[in-house]
């Protein structure tokens, strides 16, 4: 190869790097890897040693949620996501050679659209938080001069900083709508007051909320938002949608959510799947971020085929005028979610939703029976997460957490740091992964800890 190129050594290919810009140190001495190449056997041994330091909670699964949850990952989802033709592929810029991938993603969009009852879904955002941020920016573009977005005061605290980082440069003002202290539900009067000046681009709610309760007034909130000329954006947990009403039927113009429960695993934070959907309205569709697969025909018109559509919204064509800078997204996760939705199908979502609700309610009821424990803190219905308050027991949640850990149990998420008015309260999560034995183990352990 060197001879063909007409050089004597590889270094000559780098001769144009100016002297001052060259790396001058001893590259091989830098702390990079273990300082030498390793064989696969050595890698395996190193990794075994490393990962044995992790503690995986399986028996019982962790009782923690807060935006990522311990849901089951079906073997079929993993199997399909491991097909090398999919996972080693690039974005399907050449549709003819990528039809299978594009069809799978089109099916993801279609099934997600059916789950949400909205008409257009993109093929993924990074996660729920970034999808929410992009939805707010999109609302601002659609609504032109309006620069306020209203969010619930119970909004997920891990989404807030993301939304803030994304929207601050565009001058978006995010304001909290008060919640009812007893139910957690959005205060409709406060909502109307904050909408009165008619400069609100969108109203955002979560259903279920971060604190677990079901925002049962979703439809009314959407109507109020629309009355004042604001868009209605809903953030949802897709695994709840067999039992909870679809955002499209509640009047949502845009829906976002976290696809992680759909067979994607927790992976210590990612990769996840940002769901992004909207109703069919060209005013909205033209402002959508991200890639969208579409069904079309071959040029000769004889066959159906798939292509990426409406690319004129995207960065590789519109550059600084694009609707978003997103390029690499989470396509493989969307594919996994498609497989999950196909497996559960028309009736599976209701079944798994009901199972989760039965079990979470059982857990809350049993915890609430313990002296000094109140669960849930809020009146009204909840889905898979619920608040558990320990003020009556006079024990810091930290202590309970420590004691549970000793018993091989990972408890809930302490929320007092964001919601001091809730006192010693933790958010517990129960899913289809937690059976009766797991829940009983948690309850008896807490009982034991508090009786000490």
């Amino acid at each position, binding site marked *: 190869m060197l001879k063909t190129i007409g050089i004597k050594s590889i270094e000559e290919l780098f001769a144009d790097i100016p002297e001052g810009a060259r790396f001058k140190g001893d590259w091989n001495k830098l702390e*990079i890897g273990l300082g030498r190449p390793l064989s696969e056997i050595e890698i395996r041994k190193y990794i075994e040693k490393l990962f044995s330091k992790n503690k995986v909670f399986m028996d019982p699964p962790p009782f923690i949620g807060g935006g990522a949850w311990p849901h089951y990952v079906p073997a079929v989802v993993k199997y399909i996501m491991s097909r090398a033709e999919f996972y080693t592929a690039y974005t399907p810029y050449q549709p003819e*050679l990528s039809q299978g991938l594009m069809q799978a993603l089109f099916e993801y969009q279609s099934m997600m659209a059916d789950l949400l009852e909205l008409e257009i879904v993109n093929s993924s955002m990074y996660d729920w938080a970034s999808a929410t941020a992009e939805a707010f920016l999109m609302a601002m573009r659609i609504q032109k001069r309006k620069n306020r977005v209203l969010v619930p005061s119970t909004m997920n605290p891990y989404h807030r900083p993301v939304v803030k980082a994304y929207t601050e440069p565009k001058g978006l003002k995010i304001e909290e709508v008060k919640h009812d202290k007893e139910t957690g539900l959005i205060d409709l009067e406060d909502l109307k007051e904050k909408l009165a000046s008619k400069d609100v681009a969108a109203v955002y709610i979560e259903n279920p909320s971060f604190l677990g309760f079901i925002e049962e007034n979703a439809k009314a909130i959407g109507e109020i938002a629309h009355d004042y000329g604001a868009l209605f954006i809903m953030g949802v947990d897709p695994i709840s949608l067999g039992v909870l009403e679809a955002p499209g039927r509640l009047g949502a113009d845009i829906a976002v959510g976290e696809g992680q429960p759909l067979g994607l695993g927790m992976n210590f934070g990612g*990769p996840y799947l940002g769901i992004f959907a909207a109703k069919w309205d060209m005013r909205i569709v033209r402002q959508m971020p991200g890639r969208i697969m579409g069904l079309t025909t071959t040029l000769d018109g004889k066959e159906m085929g798939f292509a990426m559509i409406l690319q004129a919204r995207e960065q590789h064509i519109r550059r600084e005028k694009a609707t978003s800078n997103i390029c*690499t997204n989470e396509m493989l996760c969307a594919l996994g979610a498609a497989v999950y939705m196909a497996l559960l199908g028309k009736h599976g979502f209701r079944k798994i939703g009901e199972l989760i609700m039965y079990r979470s309610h059982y857990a809350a009821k049993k915890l609430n029976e313990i002296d000094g424990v109140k669960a849930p803190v809020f009146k009204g219905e909840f889905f898979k997460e619920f608040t558990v308050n320990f003020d009556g027991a006079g024990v810091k949640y930290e202590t309970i957490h420590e004691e549970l850990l000793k018993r091989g149990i990972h408890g809930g998420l302490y929320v007092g740091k964001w919601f001091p008015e809730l006192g010693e309260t933790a958010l517990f999560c129960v899913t289809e992964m937690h059976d009766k034995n797991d829940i009983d183990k948690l309850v008896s352990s807490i009982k034991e800890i508090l009786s000490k």
Partner: protein
Amino acid sequence: MVFRQAKWDEPLIYELGAPGRIGFLVPEVEEEIKKEVGEIKVPDKIKRSEPPALPEISEVEVVRHFVDLSQMAYGVDNGPVPLGSCTMKYNPKIAFEVANDLRVAYLHPLQDERTVQGLLEALYHLQKWLANIVGMDACTLNPAAGAHGELTGVLVIRKYHEIKGQLDKKTEIIIPDSAHGTNPASSSMGGFRTITIRSDADGNVDMEALKAAVSEKTAGLMLTNPSTLGLFEEHILEIAEILHEVDALLYYDGANLNGIMGYARPGDMGFDIAHINIHKTFGSPHGGGGPGAGPICIKERDVLPEKGVKLSDLLPGFIVKYDEKTGRYYLKYPGPYSIGMVKAFFGNVGPLLWGFTYILGLGPQGLKEVTEQAVLNTNYFTKLLKGTKGYDLPYGPERFRKHEVVFSAEPMAHDVGVTAEDVAKGLLDAGFYAPTIYFPLIVHEALMIEFSDTETKENIERYAARMKEIAEIAYKNPKEPKKWPVNTAKGRVDAVKASHPKTVTPTPEDSNTNMESTCTKRNRQTKSTQVKHFP
């Protein structure tokens, strides 16, 4: 060698299955739980009114459907994917195993730090290794993709000027015309005005244009080096000096890092912030479009010396630290000067572990070799194709390329009307993935080719031979390339129709056989006219 992709007339998933089928058995609720809880009560106003219109399919049908579809997809494990600027390298299978290890997959992101020490140790090392590779001081692993890293970098630039109280006048970011589309899009999301400057005939930044563009308003400059033309920016030191004189920060787009490892580091060239594409340079797969990981690293500098604020304080996300006293790793949450978070929780841990394993396996020697092999491949291919009638090599044709080369099919398009797109389709027919086409925008009929370190000499020769053959066919029979591809699952797809506002709609109730362009298959008719053909 004849290439033929599978061509299944695979129906949409909605056309499979039958009422009553389900692919996943949901456990029954325990009787004791039912007794304790009674009926679960979802208020009517928020209860799902109709089940979602999803298909009803058995497990084996789901598996066969997606396996059929996978056979109509094409990745690095199928053959060469020399997409320029995408660095489509082989994804080592040992890294697949590590990234999919259940001792990671089952970890909750907010799990007690003492129970995730092994993972934190890996991520701590990765932060350090990446910093050393790019010659910088601190990294965050929070961003989920390259463009996400760019946005993060732009937000850091913004915060830098905000803290220094000069944001009102720092309103512009300078970007060369050869840049990735994500650069101006990221700059714009960060609230900056993009100033585009041209490249000179040698593919470098035009220094006169740069000097004219730089002013007190300049907040930063985004640059990839080597450039998207595969050329090392020869004036980089001077550029850095000019920018730093007006207190602007230099941002390094790490998409092309594969071309310089071991030879040059962004941190030594004057860059202040750099993003790294784990899914390009460090072997994690592209997943058909994602997930990736786009960590950013910074060169430490004072921001507000009187308060001790440094540039690393502006980084977002949870950063892994090590406590010498306890011997434990822990997460540092964003402080008051940080831009916050760009993604909930840690980052894309899966792809990050691919990168970790990749670096672990190669070490510094291996990484340098990766770069040498990639650059050798590019220049070998360039030599093979250069001078072929129909193709042109614009910008510094005598200069050596680094990670990639951009040819132009303009002569062919001009002479016989055969375009870069036609060339791309001709490559598909031979069982190769196409180059990145029509990018960078400054090259007409661009064919941007990057073999990375992965491709063998034989594959590069076959690729070059096919490109020559395509040129010959084009000049002999210019109508033929317009019929390509013929060996793929589908013939050429009508992308114009697909995107036309009049045809892009969700499928209406009765249009299953009507092949309109659609975006989702909502409200479709379940009756199908299509038959699945078995092999």
